[in-house]
């Protein structure tokens, strides 16, 4: 099989690393070769964060280059727009419609672009934009946005719900397990 490429993008502190950890684990148990690439350090301070997840029979590069991503899973609207150039023609964008203003916007030096969902939909891309934040809050915490998004993503994989739940159990602390499972379900079924 051809190597599959997924980018997980968002704002530092949103929990993108947990999402890639969970997905990487699941893909490994399904027998794929997997590489997951993260950037730590400076990017954690509310900056733009990118994680690459790649899987297939044999994966070489740990990163995804322009025009290569089958899917972009974005935790925030502007961040999805930032990386469209990495999407393959006809690729999929799953995006939390939540908007988090970056410092240049807060400081009034730039404006948050308008109608980004429409503009992304005009590209050669399948865009699924939805309010993951509200679903996460309904599940019990705004911090569960990552699990809501994983639930949404799970629609596009052949894995069973039990396999996803097993991966979640191995990736989140027991204290928050039920809430995270609920968040996952709401993203998957909404």
């Amino acid at each position, binding site marked *: 099989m051809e190597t599959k490429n997924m980018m997980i993008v968002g*704002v*530092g502190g949103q929990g993108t690393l947990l999402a890639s950890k969970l997905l*990487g*684990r699941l893909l*490994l148990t399904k027998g794929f*070769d*997997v*590489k*997951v*690439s*993260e*950037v*730590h*350090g*400076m*990017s*954690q*301070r*509310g*900056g*733009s964060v990118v994680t690459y997840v790649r899987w297939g029979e044999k*994966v*070489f*590069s*740990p*990163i995804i*280059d*322009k*025009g*290569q*991503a089958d899917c972009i899973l974005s935790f925030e609207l*502007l*961040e999805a*727009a*930032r990386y*469209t*150039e*990495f*999407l*393959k*023609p006809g690729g999929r964008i799953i995006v939390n419609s939540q908007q988090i*203003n*970056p*410092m*240049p*916007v*807060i*400081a*009034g*030096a*730039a*404006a*948050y*672009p308008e109608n*980004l969902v429409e*503009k*992304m939909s005009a*590209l*050669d891309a399948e865009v699924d934009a939805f309010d993951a934040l509200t679903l996460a809050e309904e599940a019990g915490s*705004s911090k569960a946005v990552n699990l809501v998004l994983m639930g949404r993503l799970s629609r596009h994989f052949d894995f069973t719900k039990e396999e996803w739940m097993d991966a979640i159990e191995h990736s989140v602390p027991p204290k928050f397990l039920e809430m995270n499972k609920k968040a996952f379900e709401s993203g998957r079924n909404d």
Partner: protein
Amino acid sequence: MKTLMLGNEAVARGLYEAGCSFVSSYPGTPSTEITECVAKYEEVYAEWAPNEKVALESAFGASLRGVRSFCAMKHVGLNVAADPLFTISYTGVNAGLIIGVADDAGMHSSQNEQDSRHYARAAKIPMLEPSDSAEALAFAKLAYELSEQFDTAVLMKMCTRVSHSQSVVETGERTLPEPKKYEKNPAKYIMMPAYAKKKHPMVEERTRALTAWAETAEINRIEDGSDQSVGIITSSTCYQYVKEAYGDTYPVLKLGMIWPLPEQKIRDFAKTVAKLVVVEELDGFIENHCRNLGLSVSGKDMFTEIGELAQNMVKEKLGGAVQAGEPLSEEIPARPPVMCAGCPHRSLFYVLKKLNLTVLGDIGCYTLGAVAPLNAIDTTICMGASVSGLHGFVKSGDEESAGKTVAVIGDSTFIHSGVTGLINIAYNESDSTVIILDNSITGMTGHQQNPTTGYNLKGDPCTKIDLESLCHAVGIKRVKVVDPYDMETCQAVIKEELAAKEPSVIISRRPCALLKYVKHPGPICSDPEKCKGCKACMNIGCPAISMVDGKAVIDETLCVGCGVCGQLCKFGALSTE
């Protein structure tokens, strides 16, 4: 067992399996997780040292005593450890010693992108360079064998993409080698001229022996290709880009040992291909070696020495086509990292800016004080440079400039190499004012303990270095402590200390807002009735405050209630009530 591991975690696993018993490191992105991961193995003693020089010397001490040891650092940390590095090259080791160094091409979190491979050649120490996590684990074990077989420390070179990528590894069991006996051996371990002169030829001989080893080593392997028009020599993450771009098309010489480099093997490989190309990040290190062998070679004429490479670039430069993606035509505003909401550094920088001071900065989260709207920092060079730089600045200027200039340095950075600069200020008597930003943790690299926090790497309580006593002990008479959230007092104290005609230290003390034990009062309330839209609160660059329809609005998911914005509001629109 097959598992996904970060490259750094895989190094830690390799150290563990090889029976490493002593680890001493200083944190630095992208190397930090090696030491954090190895500390989780109970059988391994692991610690944070105050700096990389201390870490390497301590690891050398453990090797001398007879146990396998390790130290880790980022590329710039190796500059700090360079002094022992060059002479440990002469002494060699007793038990195996590995020095982990992680480069940061692309400067994801660094102040330069120096190429650490030059150190291996300059210090005449072998360097291994894994290209994924499986190799990181295997090479750590191999490095100990080489270290003991050739009587040398071994450099293990990582880079951001290998350190911070997870890939599949197969773990094994730990094997603890028999501890070696320490025996007094002046000719081996005392590097005074008479002995060192005898040692130097042995170092050269060792490099020749290692070069011979490199000729047949399995980790320097040739992978056949179907098209001999091009042959590629590569290593590290660049190997992955080459394979990603061209698969088995071109023959590849994949180097696992980057110093010393084989000679015959490279010549033989070159003979089998029409055009020889080296694909490597940063400097043309392997390329220059090929040139020295008299080979015709391409490298930096095709691939930049600036930043990181990637598969598309490799593909295109070698004539292949890549699929283009489609950017939005829209201008997308940047999202730079910012100081967190509630960060204790923010208010202190606001005061420095308000006083219009020249601020010599240092390495840590607080470097973010350099960006708008605070724009409060004038320089960033390296760990400790703020304090020593301030001394030179003050000594070379007049009284007025001394009264308008300060250094800012974090608690961990101060211990790392700021204290020696402070000793210079005291000893040579400059009217310098040093501000220690004590947030009670090493913040930038992700919350590591340090000698001022009272906890060690394993999380156990330990001796806490008292900063006030330390400053007094080196000869600073004026030492003040302020709470950075209290801007009025901060301003008064800074003015007072700048006016003093003697050295002084101000400790701006409040723990990092992200520390779990720090309790926050909860979000500030903004009162749209009282808000006049003057934007005074916007001058601190807090990510939790924005202007909506001319009024200040607080993002309650971010705001921790530090109350700094309330001190700026003349109309009482921002309060805890």
